[in-house]
């Protein structure tokens, strides 16, 4: 019997469900509805009940938790020990789960400093397409034994198996933050500054930028540079950074944290738009940005210009076309008309991907890769 929604509380129940159902779709906290809404004919596995931290050794810089554990719960636990998830997972306030963050491959602005979810996920247990529970990676911060299955699950959207358990490496969190906001007339002025900063020895915690108004460049651009560390050092470091850039307004305290929290919650996303993640390169931004501005799409560039968050106002088919023209791909997280999606553009991996998919999901129970 095919049921529409199965609520999973235990790993054996997850295995049973995978074995019994011909087509499956997974939802964690539902913070990214475009990813967690099942296609017609697929049974929805609700993993929000498969939650809880299994191990946390602050001294080891690692923890292990069930995949449905809310990110916010983990962040609270880590903060008590002065630690954090350095990839800065977005949508924690919207109940994003650890498994969902891995499967969606989503990172916040803090990714710029130490790396993304791919760099901090060190172990997984997942249920493959035949219902087998498989372990990949390990629980120590350094490990080169066997194929790196944890990497494979980052961004996989559940297409290769269902994550049951995840082990992350964590770091001590900077004790304080301070930012510099730099106003610039246009991208032509901004990008050279971005490149100079990137080659400089400043330890930048985050490096984001966006047009002040979505429509055009008349109102200019704003570059956000964030520093983290011992509170006593932030003042002098900010001064040095401002001297290096020749401009910039220090932003500190509540105003600073509100700005960066807003980036994680996408508070800037206008109503009625689709939120789309688009991996980019800094040099590719000017051409893409012109097209996005023409379409009236608000956007934020994050991770030093390696990630564009696009709030697309129209039909997703048009965005897919636009991205394709620039050789880019996208991932719809929420909003939009649902078609095409959630992946926009050609999926990477080619024949390598198809061969691995055939082993992990021989009956095609999960979505495509």
């Amino acid at each position, binding site marked *: 019997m095919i049921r529409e929604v199965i609520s999973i509380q235990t790993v054996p129940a997850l295995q049973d469900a995978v074995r019994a159902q011909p087509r499956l779709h997974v939802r964690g906290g539902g913070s990214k509805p475009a990813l967690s809404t099942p296609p017609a004919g697929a049974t929805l596995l609700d993993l929000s009940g498969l939650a809880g931290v299994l191990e946390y050794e602050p001294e080891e810089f690692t923890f292990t938790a069930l995949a449905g554990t809310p990110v916010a719960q983990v962040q609270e636990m880590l903060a008590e020990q002065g630690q954090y998830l350095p990839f800065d997972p977005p949508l924690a306030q919207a109940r994003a789960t650890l498994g969902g963050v891995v499967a969606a491959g989503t990172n916040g602005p803090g990714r710029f400093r130490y790396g993304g979810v791919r760099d901090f996920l060190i172990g997984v247990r997942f249920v493959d397409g035949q219902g*087998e529970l498989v372990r990949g990676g390990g629980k120590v911060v350094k490990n080169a*034994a066997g194929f790196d299955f944890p990497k494979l699950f980052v961004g996989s959207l559940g297409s290769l198996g269902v994550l049951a358990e995840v082990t992350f490496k964590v770091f001590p969190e900077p004790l304080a933050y301070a930012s510099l906001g730099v106003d610039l007339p246009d991208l032509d002025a901004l990008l050279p500054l971005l490149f100079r900063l990137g*080659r400089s020895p400043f330890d930048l915690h985050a490096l984001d930028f966006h047009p002040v108004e979505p429509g055009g460049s008349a109102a200019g651009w704003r570059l956000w540079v964030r520093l983290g560390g011992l509170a006593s050092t932030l003042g002098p470091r900010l001064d040095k950074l401002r001297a290096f850039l020749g401009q910039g307004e220090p932003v500190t305290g509540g105003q600073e944290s509100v700005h960066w929290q807003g980036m994680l919650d996408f508070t800037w996303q206008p109503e009625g738009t689709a939120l789309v993640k688009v991996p980019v390169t800094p040099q590719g931004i000017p051409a893409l940005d012109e097209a996005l501005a023409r379409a009236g799409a608000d956007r934020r560039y994050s991770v030093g210009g390696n990630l564009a968050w696009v709030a697309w106002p129209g039909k997703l088919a048009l965005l897919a076309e636009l991205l394709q023209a620039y050789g880019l791909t996208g991932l719809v997280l929420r909003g939009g008309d649902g078609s095409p999606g959630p992946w926009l553009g050609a999926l990477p991996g080619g024949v390598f991907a198809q061969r691995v998919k055939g082993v992990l999901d021989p009956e095609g129970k999960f979505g495509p890769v």
Partner: protein
Amino acid sequence: MDHTHPLLQELARLYPPERLLTRTAQLAAYESDALTAFHQRPEAVVLAESQEEVIETVRLCHRHRVPFVARGSGTSLSGGSLPVAEGIVIALNRLNRILRLDPDQRLAVVEPGVVNLHVSQAAEPHGLYYAPDPSSQPICTIGGNVAFNSGGAHCLKYGMTSNHVLGIKAVLPDGEVVHLGGESLEGVGPDWTGFFVGCEGLFGIALEITLRLLPLPETFRTVLAAYDSLEAAGHAVSAVIASGLLPGAMEIMDRLAIQAAEVGAQAGYPRTEALLIVELEGEEVAVEAEFAQLLQVIQGTQPVEVRTAQGGDERARIWKGRKAAFSAVGRLAPDYIVQDGVVPRSKLGEALAAISALSREYGIPVANVFHAGDGNLHPLILFDGREPGALERAEELAGKILDLCIHLGGSITGEHGVGVEKRSFLPRMFGPTEMALMHRVRRAVDGRELANRGKMLAIGE
């Protein structure tokens, strides 16, 4: 396989005679890698000079069902580039071009034969460097680093090779060419690039690798602390971690390793039971403040002596001794095996005590040099291969150490890979389900099991 074998005949059409080696004397240099206990003469070695030659060679091997092993500088400590009987070696050292260096986007596109250190040297004028720094970095190649997910002394903070590879163009074992990843730090879809890194050559040969570069730190502060026991040094590591600092590197050497480093590099180390090296790096203002905090923590751990490196020369000398320790150990004994297991950091003391007990039990000296920050042990098991049974006993001791790492919840390898050396231990770390899945994935990518056959996974299981 003799010279009339159709593969050799076809290779002779592809390569000029000086780049197709088949004579015994020519092949001798390729019989083993840095794991010298293993030898195997290949049927032939081709010295490829272009990606097209590599692709064509792989296609010919596939057509003729002949196994192949890709090889860079042959620095693998796990026998990763050990040739296969009846197989050929594809030497990649001549594919050593840095195809593109893009300082603005902080990336380099390189061929597999590019030497690790050369990437950092090329990037340095732009204020950038390539972070992974295995001890063999002056000679090891990026292709080998990618295949074995090599590490180095800075992995806790910056990760291993896989954390620095953005994209890979690879030829699969049947000659298909695929492009994985790209130039962005971000991606959508499964992380195929990350999955390829560390495959130990089983998924084919990387032809072009896009590496991410990092800005050179403004300054370094290095502290060398001497302790009268390994346990005390281990406790100091815990204290540093508990203080909330994130050092770029934390290394420990024991008495025997210190001796070796003195012989090899005249580092001027204190003669003591254990040395701890901790290094901070970053913006000057921040590092100064953190260094004051670090020294306070270190002073609280009862060190016998503390030295700090201010200038580049002092820092270089501290590291020279550490980095030379492996090769210098060769002066203490004719032969040695290096192990590479990982244990949870809190189990370091327990692991070292157990290794020391095993060393006494076997009557075999073991020197310890390890990445304390990430629990990555490097016991160097010293023996004389000319004594009958000595290698076997050293291997038995090495095996006990690997079992210990598994037992303590760690890994059999942190950065050297499984190779041929630790192949029988992988099924002890992973269960039958995991092993079966790895074999299935391998065969789906390489149905004939031609690519680096016998590494990581046993054949035909």
